[in-house]
């Protein structure tokens, strides 16, 4: 009987409670939709596609950050360097392949070369993630959990320094770019011409996010990753090996960042400090939506991209980092745990 009463409330009352419960989501959706319409009217389809490209990239990077923070409690400030490594691997794999193509054209290789380069970046990223986790974070975690968040943060900053300067030492500070992955004409989409590379980069970001989401939601190991982020002791009690899950999580985050680094090689060239911008923007995203919130990070990536591109359109290109930052500060002043909030395990007590 009680159930029926809940199921059929007075419509008005029900709507008010629903609105109250979902207020942040409603405000954000209404605001984003309005902005999106404004951008479409002023900029047309190319601008919308721009939002998809950058949004997909921020989402992918922010998902990695959210994962590492939610599961391992690490504020990851070397995430941009994973992007940088991906960009370099993409460059060094694609360029020789392109050279071969130039000497003897081969339609199959022409289609697969960029994909090979991006997959190679993902693989190198995954291995790099395992190495970093095994030799840096695992020993610290086994020694002590005291002051973990601060120590882990400082370690990631250190890793970032080492990787950036190490790359400069070995490869020099030069910019290595490729004009495009696909040497074909732009595709006409809703009256606008869009480069195939952009379409590919968006598709890769969306597919990777979808795969990651499916993995976390539907598979045994993915469920174990979420279990560790919610209760470490509980996870151990059901037989989950924490070391394995931590290494896997870090490796996944590094691999996805490397994939986005490689797939955006035509936009960002490969150079030692290329990771700085992606790092900051993906941090905007996770701070805006709430640390450790993966679903939020995906949505947040597109919100930040929307903010950037509308700023660029209505205020000016040079303001495109300023406005998202201001919005983020305002959101944090009003909702300190971010737009969608999330309880993050362990941060309070540590």
């Amino acid at each position, binding site marked *: 009987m009680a159930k029926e009463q809940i199921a059929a409330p007075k419509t008005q009352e029900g709507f008010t409670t629903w609105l109250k419960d979902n207020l942040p989501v409603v405000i954000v959706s209404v605001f984003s939709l309005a902005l999106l319409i404004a951008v479409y009217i002023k900029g047309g389809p190319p601008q919308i596609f721009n939002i998809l490209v950058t949004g997909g990239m921020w989402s992918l990077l922010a998902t990695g950050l959210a994962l590492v923070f939610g599961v391992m409690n690490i504020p990851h400030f070397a995430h941009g360097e994973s992007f940088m490594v991906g960009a370099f691997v993409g460059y060094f794999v694609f360029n020789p392949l392109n050279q071969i193509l130039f000497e003897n054209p081969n339609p199959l290789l022409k289609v697969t070369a960029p994909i090979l380069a991006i997959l190679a970046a993902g693989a190198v990223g995954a291995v790099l993630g395992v190495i970093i986790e095994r030799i840096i974070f695992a020993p610290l975690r086994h020694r002590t959990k005291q002051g973990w968040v601060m120590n882990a943060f400082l370690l990631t900053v250190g890793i970032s320094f080492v990787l950036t300067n190490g790359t400069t030492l070995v490869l020099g500070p030069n910019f290595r770019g490729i004009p495009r992955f696909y040497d074909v004409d732009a595709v006409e989409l809703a009256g606008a011409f869009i480069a195939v590379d952009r379409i590919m980069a968006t598709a890769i970001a969306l597919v990777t996010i979808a795969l990651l989401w499916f993995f976390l939601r539907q598979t045994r190991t993915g*469920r174990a990753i979420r279990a560790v982020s919610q209760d470490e002791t509980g996870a151990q*009690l*059901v037989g989950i090996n924490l070391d394995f899950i931590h290494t896997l999580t870090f490796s996944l985050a590094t691999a996805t960042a490397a994939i986005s680094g490689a797939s955006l090689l035509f936009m960002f060239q490969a150079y030692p400090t290329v990771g700085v911008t992606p790092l900051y923007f993906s941090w905007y995203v996770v701070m805006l939506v709430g640390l450790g919130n993966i679903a939020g990070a995906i949505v947040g990536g597109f919100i930040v991209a929307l903010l950037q591109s509308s700023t660029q359109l209505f205020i000016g290109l040079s303001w495109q980092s300023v406005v998202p930052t201001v919005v983020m500060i305002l959101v944090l002043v009003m909702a300190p745990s971010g737009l969608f909030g999330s309880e993050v395990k362990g941060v309070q007590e540590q």
Partner: protein
Amino acid sequence: MLELKDLNSGYDFLQVLWDVSLKVDDGEFVALIGPNGAGKSTTLRTIAGIVQAKSGEVIFDGKPITGEPAHLVSRMGISYVSEALNLFTDMSVRENLLLGAYAVKEREVQLETLEYIFELFPRLEERRDQLTGTMSGGERKMTAIARGMMSNPTLMLVDEPSLGLQPNLTYDVFDALLKLRDQGVTILLVEQNVNATLDITDRAYILEQGRIVMEGPSKEVKADDHVRNAYLGI
């Protein structure tokens, strides 16, 4: 089945258990009773591998398991239902239970066990899609016990299942434990509700200030003067 030999254990510089020895046989339902701070939970945590023993031995099925990490102990067939429950609060009952069978790799076996558990706890089947963080205390405790059973353990360590529950729910939880015992699962139960515990268990150990001070069949323990005075208030 389970044997502790001169176990010394505790946290950092604080030693809690002093030469604790106890034994649980196949199919037995054994109680571990004692006042607050006596070390009952520490005993269970040490067996489960969450707290590391300082010295002494934990023997399970004839093999020493002292110092094994918690996830391996769990995979050997020891299931620990902790006092804090350690449920995954942002997941549904179903997902919590499936995680209980994490060590079981075959999906069909997992689902079979799930069906069986739902038969045993119909209440949980009604709530299968509810997030455990939004459930009542009694339901959460049921979920934790059910999750502990999902790995088909041979030994269950149950820590204060009646803590914070109203009396009629306490009996529900005890009924669930008796059902388990009837399935042939060996149980080591830590409880504050001494009277009811001594009624349902086969044998009991009394732990005071980190030492075992008495052991015997539950009926005899219940008739003992010291126990009647200190725990039953008669």
